[in-house]
């Protein structure tokens, strides 16, 4: 299998604080991989470094054979990577439709954009109903759908998701995970960052466990679900 995303020796520092202390991580083409870990483990910092929102203190990030280190943020989607940020980051005073159009900002194929817009409305009925509403008026779950739909509008090769289940009711979490699974089944490569380990491990094929800025464990998702250490630390058993 060929690695689409390959991270090696990644370090992220905030002043004197070392949030990510040299991690290696790889996601193959078409895989759904999860990165789980407790609050403060360094998951968001890792994703921000991948996206170019933070400059890594050390390490390599290669995507589709190309180095991403030092690349300006606005080139990320042009390189085929979309990040759905922690907290969703919808534009509150743009309408749902305008938010989705922002996802397609780098595209110029008007027909394709319209077709994808319809596809998103098919995937997320709620968004269709609320397409003229300001995104700030949506519920948390609807905003998460919008954030995912918006990312897909850029036609990325890979999706990075930062805690999509955060703050959502269980039913909505199931719906969101279902959509992520569906997108992955259609061939999208996904890196899913989650605190909700059980959920993420059930959806993913492989998993990395992050602890205090380091990868402490990695295996197939199934093996993680059966591993006594993971069960004790992350599955509440």
């Amino acid at each position, binding site marked *: 299998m060929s690695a689409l995303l390959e991270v090696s020796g990644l370090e992220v520092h905030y002043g004197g604080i070392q949030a990510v202390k040299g991690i290696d991580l790889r996601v193959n083409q078409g895989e759904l991989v999860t990165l789980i870990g407790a609050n403060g483990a360094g998951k968001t910092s890792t994703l921000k470094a991948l*996206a170019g*929102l933070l400059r890594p203190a050390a390490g390599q990030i290669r995507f589709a054979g190309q180095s991403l280190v030092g690349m*300006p*943020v*606005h*080139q*990320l*989607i*042009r390189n085929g990577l*979309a*990040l759905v*940020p922690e907290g969703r*980051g919808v*534009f*509150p*005073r*743009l309408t749902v439709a*305008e938010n989705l*159009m*922002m*996802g397609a*900002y*780098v595209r110029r194929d008007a027909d394709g954009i319209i077709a994808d817009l319809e596809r998103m409305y098919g995937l997320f009925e709620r968004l269709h109903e609320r397409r003229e509403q*300001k995104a*700030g008026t949506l519920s948390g779950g609807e905003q998460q759908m919008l954030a995912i739909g*918006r990312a897909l509008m*850029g036609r990325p090769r890979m999706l990075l998701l930062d805690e999509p289940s955060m703050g959502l009711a269980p039913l909505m979490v199931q719906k969101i995970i279902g959509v992520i699974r569906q997108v992955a089944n259609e061939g999208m490569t996904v890196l899913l960052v989650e605190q909700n380990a059980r959920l993420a491990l059930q959806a993913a094929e492989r998993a990395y466990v992050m602890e205090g800025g380091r990868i402490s464990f990695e295996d197939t998702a199934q093996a993680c679900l059966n591993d006594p250490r993971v069960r004790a630390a992350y599955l509440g058993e």
Partner: protein
Amino acid sequence: MDIFLQQVINGLVQGSIYALVALGYTMVYGIIELVNFAHGEVVMVGALVSLSVIERLVSRGYTGWPLIVISVLVAIPTCIALGLGIERVAYRPLRRAPRLAPLISAIGVSIALQQIAALIWGRNYLHYPDILPKTQYLIGGAVISQVQVVILLSAAVLMAALWVLVQRTRLGRAMRATAQNPAVAGLMGVDVNRIIATTFVVGSALAAVAGTLIGAYYQVGNHTMGFLLGLKAFTAAVLGGIGSLGGAMAGGLLLGVIENLGAGYMGKLTDGAVGSNYSDVFAFLMLVLVLIFRPSGLLGERGVEKV
């Protein structure tokens, strides 16, 4: 003569100029939360550049509105270059600095521009040659001059065009998105630096037009003219709700009308003790009142359209 109607007309004319300038403040504030205190000086440069163009062409026998058109076509690129320069030199390097830093930088730029203008144009009041027709029109007991009509129309057209740009185009959508969340706009592929520069371009172009119109209307200018004007337009932006486009437009018009009505009736109300020369007081009284009772401005509620 209908004094009330007359003052309203005069107020709307003056207010539409405030509005054009206020839009520059509000757009920049909306996107980088910075009060661009040098914006008034950009208007001043626009006014004086167009005066220089007019003087040069008058001596060659040109006259009338075409002269104004030519002068504004020179003033616009000059002001755009100036606005871009200010952003690049005085603000961009300080984007991550504490908020006081760019504010001080803005005041520094403002003073520097005044002094440079004094070197170029001198320190005396400059008078515009009489080039425009003095035609006046009667409407219901009040008069409106041709210059006033042109000011109202050009301001209306520009504001409508700006509205379309911001609300209906891909660029405008990117500007609004950047104002709301620059980091996420970047993730969408928006080059945030370019969008910020674009808001300076738009604001400076409007400033150039405002400067030219002010020159045509009041027929006098000097290197300090941007100060009071900038303060008034900033007041208008705060009045409407800083960050809000509609607010800047409404705030500008409202401020102009209030000032002129105040000036018109002040003498009467106080039996001549306080005359129309106190009209500036109204502007700042409004500012103080708004800041006390409604700091988010008249239209500046949560959920308002920011740029």
